[in-house]
């Protein structure tokens, strides 16, 4: 029974908690028990905070019993990628450099989750500094895919994706600069939302590439992502990129109605710019049919080549990441994993002119996507091109070799959500992406929620 609690959605658990039919203390204890049992198999957590979790849970239970229910995150156990600063709790960035780093303040989003009454279970594995992984010589071992622990979770929010799939947290926060929320969601068979750039504060979150870092949720469903977004979205004056744009009630938009919705299908990303695994293409074809049955009007669209977006994205990341790490990687190279160190060193061959050309291209690519979105409510494309590879078969420089289908919307800043749309024959998940107009996460989650409502992929759980 206690393991079954760990696979409830936030929405399901919140309903029971509000009705006082489920105790936040019992729920939290179920997660702590499962973490103790399962985490050694998947390495999702690098730090578990049982005392803090039980303190949060007891407080939530007392508040709810006294009639002070705060909303659907009250008493909900969550985990945070270990680049989110947590006051009094070590925040390592999965790096030997920061093994003893204990922040004095919570990141802005961490404060918001706390204010919403959530329960902090601990800090989750990431690629080192959200930049390089999987690494075997970083501060902690890499997270493993709950569907097959020999396989990759995707990254860099590796623990955030693994924890949701394995039933080790009900909601997690990740970050996405080239796909680091959506790739773990894709490989782990869960839902991950990269909001619009500027929609969620990055304050107190260790940067990878300032101009493309996005914070957002990984959850079991789009409905759960909407619940988390209601808590974390909004302007923050301490984040220079934070946008002063009204935030809607994201859960109110989840009406399941897609009638007349115009969907642009970016088929060339996965059928001609790159040729995806045939099972990805088959899953996309089935998803198109399901969305049409729900009333969506789908038409193919043409964007620039996927490799243009990927080149722009990777060059910007390499330049900005080197800007952040240059001094420390020169002074203490032994503190970095080999993959992080080598990627940073290789970045040094790039020039200032490369960076400027990439940002000029970025403006053009953003214009091109905006132009298509004038005609369509959302865009649809594959969430990835292959099943999760084996952990021992990942090249150090894979990011340079094959484009990630997630990169376009880090470059352009548009909101994009990964949604599970099936399973490969080897039982690893496959997924799609729904992309929206800037600051229209509501429509993105509406489409994802409608799709999830008529499919049962989200109900599958891995055997661990």
């Amino acid at each position, binding site marked *: 029974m206690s393991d079954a609690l760990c696979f409830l959605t936030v929405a399901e658990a919140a309903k029971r908690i509000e009705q006082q039919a489920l105790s936040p203390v019992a729920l939290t204890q179920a997660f702590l028990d499962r973490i103790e049992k399962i985490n050694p198999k998947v390495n999702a957590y690098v730090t578990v905070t049982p005392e803090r979790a039980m303190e949060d849970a007891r407080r939530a239970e007392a508040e709810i019993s006294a009639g002070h229910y705060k909303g659907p995150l009250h008493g909900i156990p969550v985990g945070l990628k270990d680049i989110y600063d947590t006051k009094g709790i070590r925040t390592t960035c999965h790096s030997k450099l920061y093994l003893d780093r204990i922040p004095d303040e919570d990141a802005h989003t961490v404060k918001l989750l706390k204010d919403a009454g959530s329960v902090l279970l601990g800090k989750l594995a990431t690629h080192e500094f959200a930049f390089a992984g999987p690494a075997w010589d970083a501060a902690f071992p890499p997270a493993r895919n709950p569907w097959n622990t020999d396989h990759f979770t995707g990254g860099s929010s590796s623990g955030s994706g693994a924890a949701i799939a394995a039933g080790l947290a009900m909601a997690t926060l990740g970050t996405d600069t080239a796909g680091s929320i959506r790739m773990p969601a894709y490989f782990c068979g869960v839902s991950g939302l990269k909001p619009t750039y500027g929609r969620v504060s990055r304050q107190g979150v260790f940067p990878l590439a300032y*101009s493309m870092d996005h914070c957002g949720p990984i959850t079991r469903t789009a409905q759960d992502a909407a619940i988390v977004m209601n808590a974390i979205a909004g302007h923050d004056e301490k984040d220079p990129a934070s946008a002063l744009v009204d935030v809607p009630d994201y859960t109110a938009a989840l009406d399941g109605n897609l009638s007349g919705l115009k969907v642009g299908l970016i088929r060339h990303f996965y059928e001609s710019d790159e040729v995806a695994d045939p099972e990805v293409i088959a899953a996309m074809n089935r998803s198109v049919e399901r969305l049409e049955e729900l009333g969506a009007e789908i038409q193919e669209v043409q964007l620039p080549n996927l*490799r*243009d977006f*990927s*080149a*722009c994205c*990777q*060059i910007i990341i390499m330049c900005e990441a080197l800007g952040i790490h240059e001094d420390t990687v*020169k002074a203490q190279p032994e503190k970095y994993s*080999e993959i992080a*160190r*080598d990627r940073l*060193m*290789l970045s*040094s*061959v*790039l*020039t200032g*002119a*490369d960076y*400027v*050309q*990439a*940002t*000029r*291209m*970025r*403006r*053009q690519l*953003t214009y091109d996507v905006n132009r298509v979105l004038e005609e369509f409510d959302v865009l649809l494309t594959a969430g990835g091109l292959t099943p999760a590879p084996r952990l021992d078969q990942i090249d*150090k*420089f894979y990011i*340079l*070799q094959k484009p990630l289908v997630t990169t376009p919307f880090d470059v352009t800043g548009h909101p994009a959500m990964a949604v599970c749309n099936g399973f490969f024959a080897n039982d690893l998940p496959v997924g799609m992406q729904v992309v929206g107009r800037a600051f229209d996460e509501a429509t993105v989650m509406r489409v994802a929620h409608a799709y999830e409502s008529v499919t049962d992929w989200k109900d599958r759980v891995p055997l661990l």
Partner: protein
Amino acid sequence: MTEPTNIKLEDFRAQLRARGFDPEENSLREMHAALPHLNALRARLRRGYAHSDEPAHVFKPEGAKS
């Protein structure tokens, strides 16, 4: 392009040293092998932009109305 795509290993080593890095031999060879992939990405950025094609992020002075 600022460097030829077929830069020799020793020239690449010198280039990294000039930038303050002295990688181990195995790492040097792996990075050298990855250079053509990186240069392919760089080549995609060259589009013959006009002088008026500004970067995506342009500095805005304090007080400017956007």
